[in-house]
């Protein structure tokens, strides 16, 4: 899977590529509009992570050129501008998703995976982790072949864990993923903790293994090892 990361801030660009490389993707980088446009012209990518505000041009123009040339490429727009206009224009131009800066890397990862899932594995999009099977089309979870009843948030949490397996998920990243704007409040009430506890209980009760490991002072890690 080949990706192009268009982002002018070196620190952010490198963090993204590092994170995604460890997921097994091939990542190329472009720091400005000119490079991005050139690369899009020359090579084919499965996915482009595109920052809209570039020092020498607008990321939306890269998107326009790309969609003329290779409309099958997935595009995830990343922007510091929380402007609704950009979001709408971007999605109108054929972008698949939109993420506002600053974002958590696991969040980006989850979006990337969801996007690729939608675009590529159209036939059978089931996600499997050991004995756990997730069917994101129908929001159904099976452990050892038998369905498990999860609340909406617990389901989202499990999916988030599996997409970011073997990664540390901080409480803040989980709170933001699950509660969005109400993450502060969720943090206040320690909701992440109680949801993780419930999810653990339900998986174990259904005969699954407890894959959720607590990372002291940070959050959790979903891992088979």
């Amino acid at each position, binding site marked *: 899977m080949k990706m192009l990361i268009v982002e002018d801030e070196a620190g952010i660009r490198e963090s993204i590529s590092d*994170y995604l490389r460890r997921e097994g993707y091939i990542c190329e980088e472009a720091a400005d509009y000119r490079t991005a446009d050139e690369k899009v012209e020359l090579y084919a990518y499965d996915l482009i992570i595109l920052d809209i505000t570039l020092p020498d041009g607008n990321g939306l123009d890269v998107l326009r050129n790309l969609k003329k040339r290779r409309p099958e490429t997935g595009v995830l727009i990343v922007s*510091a501008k929380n402007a609704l206009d950009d979001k709408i224009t971007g999605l109108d131009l054929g972008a698949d998703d939109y993420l506002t800066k600053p974002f958590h*890397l696991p969040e980006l990862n989850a979006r990337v995976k969801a996007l690729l899932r939608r675009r590529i594995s159209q036939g059978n999009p089931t996600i499997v982790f050991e004995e756990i099977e997730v069917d994101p089309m129908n929001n159904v979870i099976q452990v050892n072949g038998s369905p498990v009843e999860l609340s909406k948030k617990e389901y989202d949490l499990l999916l988030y864990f599996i997409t970011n397996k073997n*990664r540390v998920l901080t409480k*803040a990243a989980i709170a933001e993923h699950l509660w969005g704007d*109400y993450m502060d409040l969720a943090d206040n009430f320690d909701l992440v903790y109680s949801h993780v506890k419930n999810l653990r209980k339900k998986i174990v009760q259904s005969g699954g293994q407890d894959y959720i490991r607590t*990372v002291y002072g*940070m959050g959790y890690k979903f891992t088979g090892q």
Partner: protein
Amino acid sequence: MKLLEINNRIFFRFTGLLLLIGAALFYWAVNRIIRREIDEKLLVNQQRTVQLLEQGRAVPQFAPIVEVRMMTGGAYRPGGYRDTLIYDPVEKENEPYRQLVAQVEVSGQSYEITNRTSLVESEDLLLAIGICTLGLALLLFIGLIWLNRRSAQRLWQPFHRQLEALRQFSLARSETLGIDPSGIDEFDELRDALQQLTDKVQADYRSLKAFTENASHELQTPLAIIRSRIESLIECDPPEEQMHALGTIYEAVNRLSRLNRSLLLLTKIENRQFGETVQVSFDEVIREQVDMLAELTESENLRIDLESAGSLNADANRSLVEILVKNLLENAVRYSRPGDRIVVRSGPDFLMFSNPGTAPLEQPDQLFQRFHKISGHNASLGLGLAIVKEICGVYGWAVAYEFSGGMHAFRVRLGG
């Protein structure tokens, strides 16, 4: 006291004094002139009487106007001019007279000649003059008051216009003061000074706003880098001690990011950068936000009751309304205890969020200030209510805190 009144008071005191002195001088002068005329007339009459005596003709006796007496001893009247009172049998009272007495010798015979003239007429004349003067003064007074008032109204018009313009002036709106020149030097000077002042204040305000906006924007990227770097770092399975330190840094960065985001939002609202206005149904927004909170409130055993006394709709930006409702709702939830009942009441022109409490909050007027925190709640950024107030400011709504019936309540009033 009005300037005009003070001015009038000074003016009237001074004119009154001047008029009094003037009247006294006038009386004195007129009196003197009349006296002199009378004395002259008496002297002429005396000379005529002497002439008659010298010609040996009979002198007509007409008391008390002319009296001629041969002097054969007895009491003499003192010579010269004198004022005297003489009983008038017709009027039956004493009348004032001016008299001139002279002792003359005509053909070896001594005579005492007394000439008199009544002063009643001259007194009447003086009275008439006095009344006329007073009337004139009064007329002058009234006329001057009227003129003063009329011209003051006209003259002060530019001042009142300036005052009104200043009252209408708002820092947030970027329009200039815009007062037309009046053609009166003093007011034009004031106008120029005001214009300079407001222009400068506005420029300062703009640059301060730009600074906040730029600072928040510039902070965003480094914050994002720090955060993503920490997220990469914790993947490397550092020892527990370092992980703990990283956790602390991470939490602080997250807090900073949230703070920065809220500040950016505030500046955005201040700069009116939320253009799109649509008809927003508050009831819909409230339901959505309450639904989003449902799981959260369930776990805390909180109840949120929606009470609607008529649907609430307004032309506004939908995301701003969402933020307003979210912040007020969040506020009510944050300060509730498990088992509490939160009430969201709405009507055609108001919106109210209440949650139970024991005592009214202290310093209610500071609740809406930026970074105001209630002691013991350090988790909040202290910007939520400031954002609520700012949003209300955009649409001319009013938000206020009240405490009644054991409930903290935040009420938003829409429209008049």
